[in-house]
């Protein structure tokens, strides 16, 4: 399949930004949305809207079916064993908070250790930090090697008899390093330690198979997967969702409510308190359809080629220093230019319609380790092309010119 004309499917690319074509290289932050998804939101709100699960009228029945259909689509897409293993959340951040809060409450006590890595996004560190304060749990950081990779070995080094959960990103949102999550999970399970994978950058860019990966928890942000904002997914093995206490409390997640006690609903309702993101869930089915219509293998091939091209081009640009040199790299390239702060780079690129991100990308631990405050990051989506990379490169040259000339 040829993924050349994908931009046509995204209304935003027919618009001008600063009178220039939009070169969107900020997909690791959030992806643009295909027409299919936008239209589904529109048609659902315009013709079919109702809350789900609570009323028995025709609109509610149809909405509930649509909502649950997305759950099944996600289950199939992730090759999860049961549809009850798919919990809808506000985002990956909420998904990780859900696990940290409930797992922490039930299983962690003073002296226990949570093992994360130096690559983690704040969303996969702050929730565990809370347990450090609340329960005197320790946090260990597996260290990156000189290429910015997290090896199985670096994880092994930090595991000890106090390690109670391992929480790792699938792909670094800074260096694009792909972690050996399957091997880490195997190792962890051999020591009876559960594994949470922050799949924010994995889910949009990799073929996923939960039963093969075998991790215990996998967190996804739908807005990075060509889906609406305000929606995320927690995949969790059924036994965990059955064993762990509920997270937020409210309507829809109870069985029986008495003045002196409350019992909770079965899965998946137990973890979906209150009115959920009905329209977002219904529309997300179209995001999955969009990805499936292209084929995740084709997307991977396309993005891979583009990543190699970008690395080629940027490595030839002497002013550019690429951060990290991981063995397997997906989705994101972060870089610096000697003498030009990333914020200045981003502002100058923006003038050309090139949208990148500058800052610490919610990874201060990694930036501190690397001894830099901020980097510039170009990240890829299915709609990007070699022309986009060429424009990126020539706009980088413009930065150099502005800062050199004067």
């Amino acid at each position: 399949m040829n993924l050349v004309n994908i931009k046509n499917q995204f209304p935003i690319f027919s618009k001008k930004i600063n009178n220039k074509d939009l070169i969107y290289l900020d997909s690791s932050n959030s992806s643009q949305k295909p027409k299919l998804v936008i239209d589904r939101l529109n048609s659902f709100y315009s013709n079919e809207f109702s809350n789900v699960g609570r009323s028995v009228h025709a609109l509610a029945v149809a909405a509930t079916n649509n909502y649950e259909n997305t759950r099944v689509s996600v289950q199939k897409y992730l090759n999860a064993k049961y549809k009850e293993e798919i919990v809808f959340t506000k985002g990956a951040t909420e998904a990780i908070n859900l696990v940290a809060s409930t797992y922490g409450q039930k299983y962690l006590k003073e002296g226990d250790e949570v093992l994360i890595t130096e690559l983690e996004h704040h969303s996969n560190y702050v929730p565990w930090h809370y347990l450090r304060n609340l329960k005197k749990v320790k946090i260990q950081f597996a260290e990156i090697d000189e290429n910015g990779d997290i090896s199985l070995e670096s994880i092994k080094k930090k595991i000890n008899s106090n390690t109670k959960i391992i929480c790792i990103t699938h792909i670094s949102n800074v260096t694009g390093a792909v972690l050996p999550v399957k091997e880490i999970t195997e190792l962890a399970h051999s020591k009876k330690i559960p594994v949470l994978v922050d799949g924010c950058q994995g889910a949009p860019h990799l073929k996923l198979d939960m039963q093969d990966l075998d991790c215990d928890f996998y967190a996804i942000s739908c807005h990075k997967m060509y889906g609406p904002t305000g929606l995320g997914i927690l995949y969790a093995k059924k036994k965990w969702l059955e064993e762990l206490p509920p997270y937020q409390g409210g309507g829809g997640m109870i069985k029986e409510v008495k003045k002196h006690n409350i019992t909770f609903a079965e899965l998946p309702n137990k973890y979906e308190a209150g009115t959920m993101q009905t329209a977002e869930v219904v529309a997300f089915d179209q995001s999955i359809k969009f990805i499936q219509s292209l084929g995740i293998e084709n997307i991977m091939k396309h993005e891979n080629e583009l990543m190699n091209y970008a690395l080629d081009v940027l490595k030839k640009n002497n002013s550019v220093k690429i951060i990290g040199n991981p063995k397997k790299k997906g989705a994101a390239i972060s870089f610096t230019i000697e003498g030009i702060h990333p914020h200045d780079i981003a502002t100058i690129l923006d003038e050309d319609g090139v949208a990148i991100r500058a800052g610490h990308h919610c990874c201060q631990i990694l930036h501190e380790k690397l001894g830099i405050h901020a980097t510039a990051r170009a990240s890829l989506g299915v709609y990007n092309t070699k022309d986009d990379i060429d424009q990126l490169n020539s706009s980088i040259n413009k930065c150099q010119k502005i800062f050199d000339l004067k």
Partner: protein
Amino acid sequence: MNLKELYQEIILDHGKNPRNLRKTENFNKEATGYNPLCGDKVHIYLKLNENKKVEDISFEGSGCAISMASASIMTDLIRGRNENEVNEIVKDFLYMIKEKPELSSKNLKDDEKTKLMCLSGVKQYPMRVKCATLSWHTLTSAIDNSKKEVNTEKLD
């Protein structure tokens, strides 16, 4: 959709005057079923003899016409059968309500099938399927002696 098919005379009759709405004395199996959507509950009581035959069956609870009629018709039909027959009939009924157009159990006579088929109208009302199946799931749970309560959310 067709309201007349859903609210057939026999359903309305059993709904208003449910048979076996009481508590079996000396029951030896029981289970409770919930429908968290509406708060409805059903409690099934069974007395099985040494040959695993249903000597008595009854139920307590309240609910909509569909769920009361379903429990009423079910308890009428189940009394006097042995465990294997009961399990087979339950399976056939649940299968019919969800997927098949008809009942195929060899343990049911034609007039019994006709009676049960009156409940098939709920197929067109997905949110009401739970009402029709609650007592049946609860019966299975009672027979299995599983202490777990039945919850329609999980089952349909």
